[in-house]
């Protein structure tokens, strides 16, 4: 009997122990879903206080492949074209494109005051909710993490406001347009020559993510093709300042004027002929703070509408809210900040993301002063130089925490001439990497107009590898100041196929029989400069069975014709020709057939 009791006691104690462990685990699991920084804030302010938080879901619900197919069928034609440049047809859609599960959103909605944004890229919703409710939401099995929506200070460079008389250094008649005081900021990037050739960014869709856009009827802005607008802060289509809403349209007006202003004699932006999406993603009314979820929502919006380029003169590093820590320099590693993750996904969809490097000045290596998402390897981080090409002191410096060189490239960021927000014909000189960014984004639009098959990464490579410091890039100025002309006519292999490739079949009569000659001719490609060493000619006999090309001739760079002799009347060939440089790198082929 005694033995039985002891046995029972042991079993009972074991049961109690297991129960205790399970409960403790459940409690700790719930708390683990909420980030430490959010838990700290909740403990400081109390459960009844409201917080802005990201709620991340574990998946996108059932039938993922069916949902992906539905997305494929409804993809915006512009977005489809952009993705086709960037990806294989069978990889156009991935899990990031699938909307967040409605069921998860609706179950969450019951507990929150407001859903601010739903992000399919992060598979999350940003909400305003009480601390107590966030803890309840954490218990849902489909919720994997809850974190604070980070709020940051918006900083402009610490520099005396420029009071400067209007100046222009343009020689009359030198270019098609009179650039007025905006000449130096474009001439430094070698943009006017592309304008002279008739390029203006036409056909390229640029999404501007900024703090708002006032005064769009300004004489330098009223020509713009603005496809649509959206205010992600106040959730309405108006991107200008409204008396009952938060916002500050000055910054956006300045960046928009920089990239696309058009008033000959005053202001011409590099991409004055492009089309625009204007997204207000920054709340700068009084507190001058910005929130990352608006930026990600704006980027997803840009993707939906088929934007080719995002120009973002925003960045996230130093927290506004007391008690929250800043992003550390170690977190500028291209993958940690939410906004960087969003930018990475945007880039994976083929969007070229151009971002200001930041106005945070210098730091002692290995620390950096970058702002997110400029730390991403897939984002062009643009630093600022002055009119003589020297780095400006406020321009942020790299390297990234994982050792990559930043910024990527430089453009003028001091005394940038742009449209003002006050009058219809007022202009201003402004400072900051905020204005270097749209200058480069405009150049990117010109490159894409001329090279519509280039991917976002092709453009980034071309910009970097043709900039004036490309041979010795460093963490002060990156690859240097952009050269729009060189970048536009740069090939990633640094070599282009010859031009005007054609084939003519000639009868060659040998008295008793005829053999045919395919006379191939071409001209040098003006984009090739002098790097062509050889032309390679390949031939493929036209038949269903034969799909392979054979190299039939390697010719030197002074040869512009080749005659393939001894052919019979029933032999037909498809030819391709490539240019090759000394290292043996070949251009893409050009094709012609008999």
């Amino acid at each position: 009997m005694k033995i039985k009791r002891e046995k029972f006691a042991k079993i009972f104690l074991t049961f109690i122990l297991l129960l205790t462990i399970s409960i403790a685990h459940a409690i700790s699991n719930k708390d683990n879903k909420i980030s430490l920084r959010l838990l700290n804030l909740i403990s400081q302010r109390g459960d009844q206080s409201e917080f802005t938080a990201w709620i991340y879901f574990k998946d996108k619900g059932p039938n993922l492949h069916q949902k992906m197919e539905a997305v494929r069928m409804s993809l915006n034609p512009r977005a489809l074209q952009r993705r086709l440049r960037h990806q294989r047809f069978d990889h156009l859609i991935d899990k990031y494109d699938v909307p967040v599960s409605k069921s998860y959103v609706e179950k969450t909605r019951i507990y929150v005051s407001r859903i601010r944004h739903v992000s399919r890229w992060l598979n999350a919703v940003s909400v305003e909710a009480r601390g107590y409710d966030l803890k309840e939401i954490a218990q849902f099995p489909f919720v994997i993490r809850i974190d604070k929506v980070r709020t940051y200070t918006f900083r402009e460079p610490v520099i005396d406001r420029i009071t400067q008389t209007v100046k222009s250094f343009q020689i009359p008649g030198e270019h098609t347009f009179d650039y007025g005081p905006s000449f130096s900021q474009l001439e430094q990037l070698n943009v006017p020559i592309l304008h002279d050739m008739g390029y203006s960014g036409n056909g390229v869709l640029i999404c501007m993510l900024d703090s708002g856009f006032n005064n769009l009827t300004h004489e330098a802005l009223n020509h713009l093709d603005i496809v649509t607008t959206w205010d992600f802060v106040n959730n309405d289509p108006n991107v200008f300042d409204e008396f009952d809403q938060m916002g500050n349209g000055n910054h956006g007006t300045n960046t928009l004027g920089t990239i696309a202003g058009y008033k000959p004699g005053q202001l011409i932006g590099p991409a004055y002929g492009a089309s625009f999406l204007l997204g207000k993603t920054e709340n700068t009314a009084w507190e001058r703070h910005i929130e990352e979820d608006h930026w990600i929502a704006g980027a997803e919006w840009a993707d939906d509408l088929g934007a080719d380029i995002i120009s973002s003169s925003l960045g996230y590093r130093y927290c506004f809210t007391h008690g929250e820590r800043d992003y550390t320099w170690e977190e500028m590693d291209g993958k940690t900040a939410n906004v960087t993750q969003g930018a990475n996904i945007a880039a994976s969809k083929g969007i070229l993301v151009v971002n200001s490097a930041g106005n945070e000045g210098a730091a002692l290596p290995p620390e950096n002063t970058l702002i997110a998402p400029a730390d991403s390897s897939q984002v062009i981080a643009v630093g600022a130089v002055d009119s003589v090409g020297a780095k400006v002191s406020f321009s942020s410096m790299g390297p990234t925490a994982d050792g990559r060189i930043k910024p990527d490239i430089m453009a003028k960021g001091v005394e940038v001439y742009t449209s003002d927000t006050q009058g219809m014909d007022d202009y201003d000189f402004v400072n900051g990497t905020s204005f270097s960014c749209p200058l480069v984004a405009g150049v990117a639009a010109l490159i894409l107009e001329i090279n519509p098959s280039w991917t976002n990464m092709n453009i980034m490579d071309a910009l970097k590898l043709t900039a004036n410091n490309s041979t010795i890039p460093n963490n002060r100025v990156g690859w240097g100041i952009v050269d729009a002309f060189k970048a536009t006519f740069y090939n990633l292999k640094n070599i282009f196929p010859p031009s005007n490739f054609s084939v003519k079949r000639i009868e060659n009569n040998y008295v008793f029989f005829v053999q045919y000659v395919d006379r191939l001719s071409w001209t040098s490609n003006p984009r090739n400069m002098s790097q062509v060493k050889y032309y390679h000619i390949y031939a493929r006999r036209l038949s269903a069975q034969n799909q392979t090309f054979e190299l039939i001739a390697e010719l030197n760079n002074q040869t512009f014709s080749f005659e393939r002799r001894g052919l019979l009347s029933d032999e037909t060939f498809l030819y391709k020709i490539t240019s090759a440089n000394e290292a043996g790198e070949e251009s893409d082929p050009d094709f012609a057939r008999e």
Partner: protein
Amino acid sequence: MNRTKVKIVKKLITFLLFSAFFIHVGLAIEIDIGLNYGKLQLKDSALKDIYGDGYVFNTYVRLTPHNFFSIEASYEGGYKKDGLVGIYNENSTLEINGWELCGIFHYRFKQFMPYVKFGYGYYTYKQDIDSDFIRFKVDHHKSTYVVGAGLNIYLIKGFFFIAEVKHVPLKVKPFDIEKDLSGLRYLLGLGFEFEL
């Protein structure tokens, strides 16, 4: 054996039987041997432009079993000319030669013996092109008929001079293109006769 060759063999057998008949009925067989040399004038203007006219020799053995008729076997050669062909003006050589078997009808009048001849020729024509790019070279044969007329002039016993004009029609088509290698031969020569 192809049809052309069968034809040639038939004609050859017929000719030999015919000749044997004359030999059989003849009292004596006179044999002439001779060598002619002269100009071959091509008919085709395009060929003339490339290769031009040339000179040929002709050596023959003639059996005369009858006062008015002879049988002649001969070989003609010597036409080998260089020319530039094709769009690249490549060096090439054209060569024509052939065997002939002819029946000759003649009449002797003092030192002169005019004659006409009819027969078959078996000609070879070759074209060599000095190029790395040509896949086919020509080395073909063609049988044809031969007509000619001439005059033997007997000056010394046993020896005679020969003057002959001969036409060999020779249209050939080794591949896709037909070409006319026909031409007149203007020949002068020397012969020797003896009796078996």
